[in-house]
């Protein structure tokens, strides 16, 4: 337990100290929220546009922090042999992974709080009516996307290529799944592609919980699809995750 807390603290220190990563994954969704919120006006889904965007960008923030950020971090740490070095210490691998996931959850929770505070300050969006459901969404979202992030890190071969690969996945996914705003005017086949991607279900969940004040537990389909994607991430991670650099 002491080791776990020590490692969560270490992960937090490393995350916030490396400005590039923190800006890229933490600040970028906030920035997009302000930009898009200033452009869209009127109503979306029968609610003010800024609220709909907040719900959408909550999903994007999760994809950035838990999926993109974690995958890139893990590939770099693997290729720089930081993971290999950690393996020689008494820190158990299970504790390391648990601390990494917890640290990711902490960052995404802070991101969520920052989004709501920013929305309130800039656009006057309300705080969520169902705080417990939003909290559950944050936990489910960060765990499922982090599992996929760990799995993806096992599929990426080089440190240099990691952020290109990750962006190539995250940006189109965000575009197709409504994380940058509604997709109901998209061509049918684009929406069909979006319908199989996990981010779609996180955005749906976010819309239901925040915009429509539904309970988290009433959203069985979204929860099920997210868990399935998370499980897929765990399976890929189990077979593909490596502690050591890929030998040149």
């Amino acid at each position, binding site marked *: 337990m002491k*080791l776990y807390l*020590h*490692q969560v603290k*270490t992960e937090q*220190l*490393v995350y916030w*100290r*490396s*400005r590039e990563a923190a800006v890229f994954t933490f600040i970028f969704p906030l920035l997009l929220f302000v930009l898009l919120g200033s452009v869209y006006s009127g109503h979306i889904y029968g609610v003010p546009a800024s609220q709909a965007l907040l719900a959408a960008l909550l999903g994007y923030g999760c994809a950035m922090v838990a999926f993109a950020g974690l995958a890139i971090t893990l590939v770099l740490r693997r290729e*720089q*042999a*930081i993971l*290999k*070095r950690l*393996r*020689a*210490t*008494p*820190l*158990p691998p299970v504790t390391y992974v648990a601390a990494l996931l917890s640290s990711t959850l902490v960052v995404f929770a802070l991101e969520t709080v920052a989004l709501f505070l920013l929305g309130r300050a800039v656009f006057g969006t309300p705080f969520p009516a169902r705080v417990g459901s939003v909290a559950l969404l944050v936990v489910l979202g960060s765990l499922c996307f982090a599992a996929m992030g760990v799995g993806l890190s096992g599929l990426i071969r080089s440190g240099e290529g990691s952020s290109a690969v990750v962006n190539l996945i995250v940006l189109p996914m965000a575009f197709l799944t409504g994380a940058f705003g509604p997709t109901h005017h998209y061509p049918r086949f684009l929406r069909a592609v979006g319908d199989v991607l996990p981010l779609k279900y996180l955005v749906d969940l976010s819309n239901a919980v925040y915009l429509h004040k539904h309970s988290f537990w009433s959203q069985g389909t979204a929860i099920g699809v997210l868990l399935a994607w998370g499980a897929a991430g765990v399976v890929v991670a189990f077979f593909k995750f490596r502690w*050591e650099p890929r030998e040149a």
Partner: protein
Amino acid sequence: MNAISVRGLRKAYGPLEAVRGVDFDIEEGEVFGLLGPNGAGKTTTVEILEGYRRRDAGEVSVLGHDPERPGRDFRERIGVVLQQAQLWPTLTVRETHAVFAGYYAKPRDVDEVIELVGLADKRDARVKTLSGGQKRRLDLGVALVGDPDLVFLDEPTTGFDPAARRAAWEMIRSLRALGKTVLLTTHYLDEAEQLADRVAVLREGQIVRIGTPRELTTGDNEVEIRYRRNGEEAVVRTAEPTRVLHELTSAALARGEELERLEVRRPTLEDVYLALVDEADE
């Protein structure tokens, strides 16, 4: 008491046999050098002992543990300096040491370790601002902060300038003073000669010679006599230098000649090593 004991160790990567039946023991408190050209199997051997790789065959005991099942207790007692490993660039030297100290049950005092590896004036510097030599000292500090009994150093001075190498040697000597057992791999002969109590020379996955640097160089008691005659270099290798030298000089005196550039020397570890390694090409 042996810190490390290896018998019949074998490891292949596909068709490539990296380690082909290696035996050696390392005593507690000993600095042991594993010497050999690139690809001789040094890193594979060390990584098996560190618990990174499984072996195909053989018996291995490291501090009484089988490194294929490396428990917490084993990890508590070893320190590892890898050939090419980085650390978080944005943390400071002190933070980095403190992170690693937190992994061990009984770590050494962080500031003491930073002092020991000579980074006291860089304590609050970010890792990314350190020079190459300073980074290697950080590597060593991080490996020592858990107060290990056994330290693995994989080519600790590769790429160092001469001054940095000498500083690193001093640090490795200080490990011996602390009573640590050290397993050092290197392809620099002078390094092994300077630091190691005993040396094993690996070639193509097998140990071709093992002993103290002195035993290796005087093992067959051969001496080399060199001189020039009619502008030609002559080399005589002999185990009876007194007799051979007497005959040579008597003959030269009788002819009224001078043996130009006469030289009698014992082979250095380098000569022995190169001779051992060269046999491979034949």
